[in-house]
């Protein structure tokens, strides 16, 4: 399977806005937020619906018995709903901006459909599954499909942001093309694989707009808890009149409505959908498209990561790691010969030898102009240089070069092949360097040790993953020996050597049998079953449409390392939700301490002892709690959109930290906030 490494330099997606510009998005989002005040849009969100009913009730009461206090409470209750809607509108607004930029790229062109009679021009929207269309240089591909004839370079920057063109050809794993991208050269015939309106770009637009957003399992479960809490508080507040009536007191309905709104979990209720939208958005900003929110959540739950060796764990190519001198040769001399022999070798391996030896020698050489380059052939399995002074330099596969040395009667073949075996045993690739004058015996002078180089920083990331309780399994086609060497060096927990797609499938199933969630990346058609089986299957955008269809995420950059980021984003989404829930519920304590003494102090003066915040008056205490309850939503919108800061820690460390910040913080913050608001509110008339 091939993995193309792409590192995007430009991105068409809007970048994550900085904190300050986020506030600027509030303005444009306000009309949308106001439109959502319609109760028919709220009734499926019980928390906000209760706020709406309370706000309507207080407005009526304020109209019947007007007072500064009543109107202020009513206004702030409406503000609470407005702020709650604002959170969702801001999150959706960001998605809309992305969708608009995508829409501009959507194919509006006509398609040249091939029919038995010849070619006909039809609208792209009229294409059907299985149609064959012709696209030539400079034309826009009318729909998603597979190349069935020809080869072409395609500019996919419209969807990936990657400006370098990619090659698309019939057959193999690079046949998929996306509607809306542009053919730069040549002519291809494409078989359409997606109906109009269901193309990749259509799905992307729907996803970033949140139009098809379905609640995730976790969100639904949390919604149930919030509904039940709302019911409990509804009971607690609605039974106050008979309890207070026993002591001959009649609490005002206005105050009860205010108390109810303060107690029900409005903060998390308001931010819940914004958190979900923002989570998807964070993935989109990293050029990953999740086909469902469920997949993002599953990413947080993943406990096994299957990572392809090449391109993910190691750099794509083998690199020089050492040069061993053979016989009585001086190491420096061997470095020089190795350097010379590779100068004409334009393979990545060859270049790595030049670089490595140049560092050791402290100088670089140029290919002598009078030297003759001996190119690599499959027969000789070696390459080299014939210098003007008659020196022959050869470098190549150990067995071939050693045979050449022995045949010419040269020395060092035995030692060189022993060193080569040792390097092979350690998982490396040996290249033997030999040198000699024309006609004279050629001697083996040294062995170059090529090895898979683990990408810088990978070892640390695997350690982090282990810390987070995630097992990493390296998948490779290498033999077990080579695989083990690299697995040890990279620090992965396990490896699957000589892996076939069936092996991969078996591994995924056995992990899932044990109750583990598995994430993997893939791009080939033969990866499709495994991608579908995995809980999180990230298909590379360069991959086949079968792979993209099977996975539940697509990485537009086709960077398999991103799987690790995807896990982090999934976790961050869940943590943000949990943290704000905890914060929201913990807030209630302070609100009780504000409102209960205010409500009952008339009939039970002793309860003024509960006014530990020393709030100015009953009216100012109740209004301050209501205002705090509304403002905290606005204050937390940036956090809900950006997500709680995530550190790759063990679960117990994360828990302790977050309980301290959001649990304890959630208890303390409103005491301070309500007191500060009260200091201002007491200056208002009617307090």
């Amino acid at each position, binding site marked *: 399977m091939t993995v193309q490494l792409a590192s995007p330099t430009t991105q068409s997606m809007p970048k994550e806005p900085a904190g300050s510009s986020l506030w600027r998005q509030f303005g444009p989002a306000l009309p949308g937020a106001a439109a959502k005040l319609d109760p028919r849009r709220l009734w499926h969100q019980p928390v906000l619906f209760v706020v709406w009913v309370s706000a309507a009730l207080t407005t009526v009461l304020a109209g019947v018995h007007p007072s500064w206090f009543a109107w202020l409470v009513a206004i702030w209750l409406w503000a609470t709903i407005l702020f709650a809607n604002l959170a969702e509108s801001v999150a959706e607004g960001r998605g809309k901006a992305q969708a608009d930029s995508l829409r501009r790229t959507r194919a509006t062109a006509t398609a040249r459909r091939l029919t038995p009679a010849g070619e006909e021009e039809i609208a792209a929207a009229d294409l059907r599954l299985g149609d064959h269309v012709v696209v030539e240089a400079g034309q826009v591909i009318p729909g998603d499909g597979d190349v069935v004839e020809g080869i072409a370079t395609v500019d996919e920057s419209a969807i990936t942001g990657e400006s370098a063109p990619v090659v698309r050809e019939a057959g193999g794993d690079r046949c998929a093309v996306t509607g809306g991208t542009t053919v730069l050269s040549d002519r291809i015939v494409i078989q359409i694989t997606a109906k109009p309106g269901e193309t990749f770009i259509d799905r992307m637009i729907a996803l970033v707009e949140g139009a098809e957003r379905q609640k995730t399992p976790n969100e639904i479960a949390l919604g149930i*808890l919030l509904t039940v809490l709302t019911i409990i508080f509804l*009971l607690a507040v609605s039974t106050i009149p*008979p309890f207070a009536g026993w002591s001959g007191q009649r609490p005002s309905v206005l105050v009860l409505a205010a108390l109810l709104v303060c107690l029900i979990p409005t903060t998390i209720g308001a931010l819940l959908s914004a958190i979900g939208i923002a989570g998807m958005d964070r993935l989109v900003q990293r050029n990953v498209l999740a086909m469902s929110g469920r997949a993002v959540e599953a990413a947080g739950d993943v406990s096994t990561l299957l990572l392809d060796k090449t391109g993910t764990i190691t750099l794509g190519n083998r690199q020089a790691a050492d040069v061993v001198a053979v016989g009585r040769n001086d190491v420096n001399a061997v470095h020089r010969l190795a350097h010379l022999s590779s100068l004409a070798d334009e393979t990545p391996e060859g270049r790595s030898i030049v670089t490595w030896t140049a560092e050791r020698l402290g100088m670089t050489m140029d290919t002598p102009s009078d030297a003759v380059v001996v190119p690599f052939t499959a027969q000789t399995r070696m390459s080299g240089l014939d210098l003007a002074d008659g020196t022959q330099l050869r470098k190549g596969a150990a067995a071939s070069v050693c045979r050449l040395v022995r045949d010419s009667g040269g020395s060092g073949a035995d030692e060189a092949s022993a060193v080569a075996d040792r390097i092979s045993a350690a998982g490396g690739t040996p290249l033997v360097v030999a040198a000699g004058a024309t006609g004279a015996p050629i001697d083996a002078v040294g062995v170059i040790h090529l090895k898979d180089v683990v990408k810088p920083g990978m070892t640390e990331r695997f350690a982090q993953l282990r810390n987070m*309780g995630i097992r990493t399994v390296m998948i490779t086609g290498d033999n077990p020996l080579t695989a083990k060497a690299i697995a040890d060096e990279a620090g992965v927990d396990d490896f699957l050597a000589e892996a076939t797609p069936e092996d991969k499938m078996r591994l995924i199933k056995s992990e899932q049998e044990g109750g583990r969630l598995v994430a993997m990346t893939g791009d080939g058609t033969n990866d499709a079953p495994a991608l579908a089986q995995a809980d999180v299957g990230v298909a590379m955008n360069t991959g086949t449409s079968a792979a993209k269809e099977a996975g539940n995420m697509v990485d537009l950059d086709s960077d398999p390392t991103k799987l690790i980021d995807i896990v982090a984003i999934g976790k961050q989404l869940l943590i943000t*939700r949990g943290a704000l829930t905890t914060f929201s519920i913990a807030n209630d304590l302070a609100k009780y301490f504000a409102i209960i003494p205010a409500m009952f102090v008339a009939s*039970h003066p002793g*309860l003024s002892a509960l006014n530990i915040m020393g709030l100015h008056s009953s009216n100012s205490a109740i209004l301050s709690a209501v205002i705090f309850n509304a403002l905290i939503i606005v204050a937390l919108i940036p956090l809900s959109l950006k997500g709680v800061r995530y550190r790759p820690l063990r*679960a117990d460390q994360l*828990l302790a930290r977050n*309980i301290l910040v959001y649990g304890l913080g959630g208890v303390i913050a409103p005491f301070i906030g309500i007191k500060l608001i009260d200091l201002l509110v007491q200056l208002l008339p009617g307090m």
Partner: protein
Amino acid sequence: MSEQASGLLTVAVLVAALAAVHVPLGDYIARVFSSDKDLAVERAFYRLSGVNPQSQQRWSRYAVSVLAFSGVSVVALWALCTWQGRLPLDRGATMDWHTAINTAISFVTNTNWQSYAGESGASALVQTLGLAVQNFVSAAVGIAVAVALIRGLVARRTGLLGNFWVDLTRATVRLLLPIAFLGAVLLLAGGVIQDLAAPQVVETITGGHQTIESGLVSSQEAIKLLGTNGGGFFNANSAHPFENPNGFTNLVEIFLILMIPFSLPRAYGRLVGDKRQGYAVLGFMAFLWTSMLVVITWAEQAAAGSPTGAMEGKEVRFGVWSSALFATSTTATSTGAVDSWHESFSPIGGGGALTNMLLGEVGPGGVGSGLYGALVVAILAVFIAGLMVGRTPEILGKQVGRKEITYAALYSITTPALVLLGTGAALLVSGAKGAILATGPHGLTEILYAYASASNNNGSAFGGLSADQPYLNLTLGACMLLGRFLPIIAVLALAGSFAAQHRRPTTDGTMPTHTPLFAGLMVGVALLVTGLTFLPVLALGPLAEALS
């Protein structure tokens, strides 16, 4: 010895005894419910009743068995109470129809709220064949449900929770009967009476006549406490000298109340194969119990400003410390036996006993019900805080998803709803309102306490309330019934959905549920949820009284 020193010594002896017994007893309970073997007497019972002890039940079948058994029990006990006058061993005791309904529900739901007077309301036949039998089996039902929940947590995609009839039988035969026997002997040795003599009529100093009842007290006393039942043989309950003659029997009684509830976490740890899980639950329970003990003892000591504290409503032979210890233990479990009058406690002391029940009786709670209540708290804690570690919340490898949180939430909302609606409605009904003795905040506490006690299946009475009247008998009966069986159905449904799941392996990414931090989190969740639900009414009741 000073009051303080003897009080502290009593607590120390109790804690030492519980610490010593909870490990072997917990291990024994775990063995009882995981063993493959049946005793001869159990086999005989299974043959007689046509139960196949090997057959395993899904949650729905388990729940139907619980409900069927309890339903039949209610009807049988009601019939026994109603027609006791026509049955043997009659002493002229009678019950109104609504009192009989209340009593039948009360004893089957492990509440043991008594709106009749113990000695004059029930004949010896009702006491032994009806009430005493329910004292055993209603406790066994609670243990069975707790064990079913544990099995659900342990099961790997089987959906099976064990067999209710086997669990019921084993809890009764292997656990409750032998310990109750030992307890009865101990109480007998301490001076509790046990006879079948006819009532004695004595002439008092003032020349009046008093009928002194007696009966099989010691044997009934042991299971009354061991099964966290609390229904007294005598109206005065454990304050009566025949039931609880001295400091020693008082300590034994408290020990009997607490021994099974405090041993069940150990059994839980054993059954799930991780003892540390049990310690966390034990820590949670012990923290709540200790905190409430400190609050109530302090409140009673501080009351009245005298060195002896407030002695009104307390027995001189027990004193403030032992009375507070009993009050804490009886309301922290679902017992409801009393050796002092909670009505006469200081506002904070009485409010503490009330809060114990409002917490859902989880510190340590009734036999079985305490453990499953604590586990539901753990599930809520896992759900709220679990997201904060960035994974779908899970407990012991079982996910807490949509279904699970629905059941846990239904469990948690049932009793608060019953208490708030019951009390609120009673205050709107003139008949019920008239039954309240005190005025002002104390009167509110009286009626709130009654509904809290019934809905949480505690059964202790605050006092003051004239509860034996149709409205209260029937609504409190409904609270007892719903407060017992709705949560049980929710727990079994929860167990069933856990049992159908994979058990996910524990990794460093899993939120640990065995740490002190988690136990603290459980305390926080229990206090916060209860506090937020009941703070308004507590402010109008005990708090207003204390701060006036």
